[in-house]
């Protein structure tokens, strides 16, 4: 704990040292002057100025042409579009090519060609906007989120514009804290391309989940086989109507694999749920099977206590 505070103290102190020694802030674009494009496209130029791309902004049209292509004809006759107008006349690949002409060698774009987004004609400009705005450079639609204690614009609002099923799951009663801003889509997925299914960052779902949930990583003396093979056999990673992000409520989830012993009798000693006395049963109430078989992800307990995931 003490060392952790020391690390943070040094890190933050260093950062603020850097800030205090900075020159007096200067307003406007860094390079000095604005390109002639600003005469008509003032908002676009103003939007790009504070971005990392805007660091190259100057009185020439070099920055603008690096993405939009040759604008000479457009300057002579505004009705003639530049080479790359980024309108519906351009394909996704053509739009992305403008960005990749500079960024293709970036480490995080290494697997762009292999990814689902390129395959499904998603262009860089579908998620990013170099002309600033708010969320990751993209003008974001009005939010429908409930009250949040964060003022940040959140990544899922961009991804959810296309991935509507996932957006719906995030609003269910049991969900990863994505809409609360504590988990981002890019914490699990690489939107720029990956070689794994669903573009998850790790080589398997289980390796990915164990990165945050390392208490489930094991190895355990006694393992639960579907857990070892695929977390998504039981869980929905985005959201579910069932507590603990389970796909189906317990006991039915367990009965999908376990039918012997008392697995069938979960509804009561005699299947009489809802009867005159409700016949409340430890195998059905609260968390049903998991009331006793709590160590569902694996156990280190001895003998049958561990084998049956009881301790």
């Amino acid at each position, binding site marked *: 704990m003490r060392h*952790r505070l020391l690390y*943070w103290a040094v*890190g*933050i102190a260093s*950062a603020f040292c*850097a*800030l205090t020694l900075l020159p007096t*802030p200067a*307003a*406007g674009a*860094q390079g000095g002057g604005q390109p002639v494009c600003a005469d008509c496209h003032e908002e676009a130029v103003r939007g790009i100025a*504070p971005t*990392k791309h*805007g660091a190259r902004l100057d009185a020439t049209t070099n920055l603008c042409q690096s993405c939009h292509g040759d604008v000479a004809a457009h300057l002579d006759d505004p009705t003639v579009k530049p080479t790359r107008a980024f309108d519906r006349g351009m394909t996704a690949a053509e739009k992305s090519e403008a960005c990749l002409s500079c960024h293709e*060698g970036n*480490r995080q774009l290494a697997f762009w060609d*292999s990814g689902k987004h390129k*395959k499904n*004609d998603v262009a860089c400009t579908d998620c990013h906007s170099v002309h600033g705005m708010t969320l990751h450079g993209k003008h974001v639609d*009005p939010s*429908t*989120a*409930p*009250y*949040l*204690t964060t*003022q*940040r614009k959140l990544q899922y609002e961009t991804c959810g514009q296309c991935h509507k*099923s996932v957006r*719906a799951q995030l609003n*269910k009663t049991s969900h990863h804290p994505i809409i609360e801003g504590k988990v981002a889509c890019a914490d699990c997925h690489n939107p720029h391309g990956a070689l794994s299914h669903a573009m998850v960052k790790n*080589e*398997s779902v289980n390796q990915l989940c*164990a990165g945050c949930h390392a*208490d*489930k*990583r*094991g*190895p355990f*003396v006694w*393992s639960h086989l579907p857990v*070892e093979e*695929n977390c998504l056999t039981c869980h929905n990673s985005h959201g579910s*109507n069932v507590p603990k992000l389970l796909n189906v409520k317990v006991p*039915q989830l367990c*009965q*999908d694999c376990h*039918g012997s012993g*008392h697995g069938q009798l979960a509804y009561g*000693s005699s*299947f009489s749920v*809802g009867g005159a006395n409700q016949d409340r049963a430890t195998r*059905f109430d*609260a968390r049903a099977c998991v*009331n006793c078989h709590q160590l569902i992800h694996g156990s280190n*307990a*001895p*003998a*049958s206590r561990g084998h049956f995931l009881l*301790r």
Partner: protein
Amino acid sequence: MDIKQSTTSAVLIACLFLLAAPAAYAADGGFSLTGSYTLGGQFVDTQDTVDEGKMREYRDLTSGVLSALGLTGRGSNYYLDFYGENVGRKDMFLDLRGGSYGSFKYGLFSDSMQHFFTTDARTPYSGAGTLNQTAKLPNLDPSTWNVYDLAYKRRSDGAMFELSLDSPWYVRADVGQISFDGNKLQAYAQGTGSSNGFVDLAVPVDFSTRNLSFESGYSSKKLHLALAYLDSKFENDDEILHWTNGYFGNDKLTGTDLGIDTSYLPSDNQLKRWSLNGLVKLPLSSSLALRYTQSESTSDVTLATSQLIGTATAKSTAPFLASPAVFNGKVDYDTWALTWSAMPAEGFDVRLYALDLKRENKSTDVLFSGFTTATTSLGCVGVVGGTGPVGSATGPRVCENEPFGFERRNYGAELAWRPTKTNRISGGWDQIKTDREFHPDSDSTKERRYSLEWRNTALDTLVASLKLQLIERRSNFLSPALPNTVWSFDTANMDRQVYKAGLDYTPTAKLDLSAEYYYKKSEYDDSPSGRQADDRGEIYLSSVYGAQDGFRVKAYVDYEKASTDARLVSRNSTTGAVNYTVFTGIEDKFEAFGLGFDWPAQERLLVTGAASWNRSKGAVDFNGLAGAAALPTTLINITNYGNNERLALNLNGTYEITGSWDLTAGLAYEDVAFDDIQFDPYSYVLPPGPLVGPAQATASYLSGWYRDPEYKATIGYLLAKHTF
């Protein structure tokens, strides 16, 4: 160098570069710093909510001060971005990034969160949240129990540094720690059978995961090659939990002579992983991507050789043997992936891929033995004094683990054809073959997927798509199917069809309309018992209207319906006759509506609003078929199986007082309802009826989690922001 020393080194190296930054920034002519700071507060009124756990599940909704600071530094060579908010609150967020374009970059972050389960949870135990929890049992009056909050804090801290010096070569270091502190709910069975009750306990959560990774590589437009190493260590300070077991030795019903039971919390573990990533651009506008990883997960456990056991009238601590005495857990993962993507001709895209994942479980084979007649329930197979083969029904009474391993091979091909610029037809074939060790049902599964998709953008204002996918799964089962055999649902033979349609319509520059339909149907025809079929239908409608800098409104409507059919067969193991069959049909519906708007009401006033409503309804239908025996009882359907409803409203206005100051005032309201037969009516003690005499030894004690997650909350907030 162990992980702690590595952590120290990495952070200090990052800080050295930060210290050097001031000189660099000062030399960067024209570097400008802009930003904003926000100060304000929120006031939360929960209107007699009984349990605030759901409301505060991931948000710090205690009344108090809110703050935020954002800094953006831009120069021709250097950049810096800092954002911090809610300093001192349970959901504090800090993020600092910066660097020199193309030369180096760094990052520091800290993100805190609380995961709240229940406020005012109850327990008859003393020491809730500690490793020693004792109680005088039976204690059937929850009003006398101890009260506590069930929650833990999670904090993620980390740093990153990457150096490339304007070359395609780079080195990178990432260090991070995720720590948990608090308690969470776990439950444990009390006696030797499922009718002996269970207890909810607040177990301590005090663990952390430290990650340290290094990567170096070469990344250019034509070639990418990177080698990375990750060391991840999970450490848990609390591994053994002792608690009073109210079942064993409870004959006196005075709370004395009760046994202390032992439960085992997650042990320390470590993951070490090497990975090699590569990409090379090839002719025919193609690229070949490669990934290889090799990882080792380890965890060592000293095995216990005794366990509390007995009856309701007498307890004992039963010793037995464990061979070997220490479990050395070791799981190796070897994976590789290869993808070739190409545009071999105009209008054609091809993608061929192969992935292989091999999980080798090299963990210790552990044999527990030495069971007597009195401790036979601690064994798993065999009989006391048995002389048959170890591990058989006639052998000695033992319990032996079986380290599970598998290999999964995935191959596939996708082909897309664009007959015109506005039409795209694609098809794909995919196969996954999984071979398993020590799986009780199936040692091999093969799954094939066929897909076909058409996408059209012929009209400037319309994008349409249709997709069909067929999935076929077949497994090799290790034993013949009996009428009551349940094949593991993830290995059972399955046939699935998936249909998807999408429509995006933009009739004007100000209006976007979108519709999406999804339907999935699965059948498990070869499963004698268990899941038989499931289907799922989803409809999503959304629209956005308005100019980018004017009034803009977004709305969506979601509808989902899923159903699962299963049959459970009861069979007489002696005669082989089917006693009876119970059919279950689960239905799960989800409906949602959302609306959000931004309205620049006046030149200096922006009004923002959001409304969202969603409702889930679950139900189970039962039907029965008598066979050799009558149905055990009348089957009664369930209509409240996970029903919940949430309404959330949020309205605020931001007034620009001057060019650099603005004020935001807002009001939010939330109303959540919940109805689930598994928790309603809620009882802290099960069964809820009066327990007398020895039956009290089988009482179950619940914590109150989900007893009443409903809440109503009104939140007012006021924020002043200065931009510089």
